[in-house]
């Protein structure tokens, strides 16, 4: 019955463990739609196989095909040009989860150093041109196994292909993102509710994590900074204790059912100063300008330029450069940092793309300021996906 440091697709645990879940009609339709879209993109690039690789920190493409939360350090989903997809993970529990969820019914445990089931499936498939999503991240030990299994095939990156496929969200996906938005809004409430003089930054993160996990969040991307006008950017939390008058900035990005959604806000411990209010007004104007530019067919550059023009008009244009900031927003979905909203990015935003518009940067007015809302691109313009008010928050404690 027992094995020692040995994991496998043990026959003894097969049977019901491998009983596929029955997909609801809307899920079956979504899965079929995804397969069709990916295969159209594959055909355009002459691919007869798409292998999505998911390392521990970039599982979005595997999730797109499995709709399953995975824990393995390395996971794959393989979609042939024709036929049924397969999935593979270095965590045996993942294979049961995938099969029970039902989007892929052929799932296997693999040893990262000898992924036999993956190699066998590739050999059987014998693609002439294989695209690998996150090819750039595939460890050498796995690359060797993949390449060795398809010695005659041309192996290319399919990372951009999958980024393109995932850019416009379906109604099914938007529904999920709306639920994430509710969790995100609750997380922000917990954030503001926790603020009080003496609390260390990491204590704020603990309060937020407690709340969003209570509501079912799987994960969270969260940067933070506290202090006055000396603050130049956000990082992981420090032991710094909050002081009265501090502005506390965050980008809060919970993940629920696979989908991330971000909110950018700043809050003051106690009453805001005039400078902090002026800073908010400037950033709010930039958010509004970015939103005004949003409609299907515009580029990420167009949105970024609209935001930056506000800073330029007010004499703060230099603070829109890489010396002070990174991007003016970015796409959202199964990855929280999809196409960047930045001047020079000519990616066209289609209807139903989801992005956050956040002109976060440093200015001498009140230091680094964080403000932004997630929006869906519609023909009528942007639809704000979150209910959190866009204002400079003040904590009840510290007044």
């Amino acid at each position: 019955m027992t094995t020692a440091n040995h994991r496998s697709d043990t026959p003894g645990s097969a049977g019901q463990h491998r009983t596929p879940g029955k997909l609801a009609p809307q899920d079956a339709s979504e899965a079929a739609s995804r397969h069709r879209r990916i295969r159209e993109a594959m055909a355009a690039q002459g691919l007869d196989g798409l292998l999505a690789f998911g390392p521990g920190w970039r599982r979005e493409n595997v999730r797109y095909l499995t709709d399953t939360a995975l824990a393995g350090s390395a996971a794959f989903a393989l979609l042939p040009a024709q036929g049924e997809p397969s999935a593979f993970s270095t965590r045996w529990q993942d294979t049961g989860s995938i099969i029970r969820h039902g989007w892929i019914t052929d799932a296997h445990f693999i040893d990262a150093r000898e992924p036999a089931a993956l190699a066998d499936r590739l050999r059987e498939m014998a693609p002439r041109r294989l695209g690998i999503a996150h090819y750039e991240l595939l460890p050498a030990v796995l690359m060797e196994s993949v390449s060795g299994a398809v010695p005659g095939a041309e192996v290319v990156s399919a990372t951009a292909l999958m980024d393109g496929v995932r850019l416009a969200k379906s109604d099914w996906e938007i529904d999920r993102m709306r639920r994430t938005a509710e969790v995100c809004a609750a997380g922000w409430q917990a954030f503001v509710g926790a603020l009080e003089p003496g609390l260390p930054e990491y204590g704020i993160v603990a309060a937020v994590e407690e709340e969003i996990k209570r509501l079912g969040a799987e994960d969270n991307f969260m940067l933070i900074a506290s202090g006055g006008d000396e603050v130049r950017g956000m990082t992981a939390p420090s032991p710094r204790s909050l002081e009265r008058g501090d502005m506390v900035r965050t980008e809060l990005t919970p993940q629920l059912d696979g989908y991330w959604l971000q909110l950018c806000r700043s809050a003051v411990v106690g009453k805001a100063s005039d400078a902090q209010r002026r800073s908010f007004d400037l950033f709010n104007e930039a958010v509004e300008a970015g939103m005004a530019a949003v409609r299907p067919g515009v580029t990420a550059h167009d949105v970024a330029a609209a935001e930056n023009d506000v800073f330029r008009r007010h004499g703060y244009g230099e603070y829109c450069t890489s010396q002070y900031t990174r991007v003016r927003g970015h796409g959202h979905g199964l990855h929280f940092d999809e196409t960047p909203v930045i001047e020079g990015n000519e990616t066209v935003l289609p209807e139903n793309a989801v992005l956050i518009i956040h002109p976060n940067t440093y200015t001498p007015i009140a230091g680094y300021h964080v403000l932004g809302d997630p929006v869906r691109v519609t023909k009528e313009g942007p639809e704000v996906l979150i209910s959190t008010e866009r204002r400079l928050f003040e904590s009840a404690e510290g007044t």
Partner: protein
Amino acid sequence: MKRGLVVLDPAEISGREWQQRLAVLQRAMAASRIDTALVYGDVSRADDIAYLTNLCVYWNEGILAVPAQGDPVFLTKLSPRVHPWMRQVSTVTDLRSGPSLGKLVADLLGPGNGRTAGIVDADLWPAVLSEEISAGLPGWEVRKLGGLVREQRVTPSPAELVLLRRGAGILAAAAGKAAGEQPDANARIAVIERELRGAGFLDVVARAADAPDGIVTLRVSGQFRTGWLHASRLAGDGNGTSWPDAMRQAIGGAVTAASAGACGERLSEAARPALSVLPPGTAVDVRWVNQADMATSGEYQPYSPDLPMTQGSVAVIGIEARFPDGADAAVAETVLIGTDRAECLTDPMLTAIGTAASGGRAGS
């Protein structure tokens, strides 16, 4: 993303110890005639870089370039705007950012003139990056190396052990609280997040999964400073079913059997008697993983059944059961491996039981 506390405290790890860690690597490099060692990390597995510098790759990727003599340089895709923070919380002063790690390496190292660069743990590097670096270093011999830094991390120093003990106590208390009366699985995870992050854990990975008979398996991994702790607990009363107690007894047996030189097979044998009450058709895995490999749960390391445990190392011993109905359950503890027994860091009672069973021997 790692979003817990990152702190560099000389009262915890002295400046001398940080220098020694680097010196050990540099001596190994000298023995292999390596002029510059390159250590890769991404947010999901960057413990080698953290061990050498206390740098936290909280997101994205980076490479630590370690010269045969002198100070290391950190190359990263993260923005230069985080350099001040990184200097504050690490031993590194030279940080360079850019969109291409290959170009950053090429710019740093320049023409080789017959020198040798070593890619540490080359099998685990992104193949494309490794090739890009090799191609971008004219005049350099680029050699693939094994896990030189990981080997150092296998046995914690006394200072690291102090932190691991502290972290284990916090994690055990949190897991115990979460396994108690809670309204649902999400509430259990929420408790763990609050307790561990509130106590300054850098990273928390907590999962709750339904097991048979109303039992919930809680798997809790946490990184305190740079060391990993893990415990898996079974929550719920199980309506009088016997298998949860059997699994608890089994992990007690496995922990009692652990010592320097013990291997997975021995742990499995010790666990087996208690597991005989599990339903027919249940598959069980008994395994151990060094805490140094816990960022990936040991999935990138070859843990064979006859691999012996190392004196002074800290390991996670776990038992995973897969029931015929497809559900699974787990129990696990983090232990310190001594010469003739193990000390259970996440459940001191198991150590006491083990000591009593072995006639009161103390040897760790």
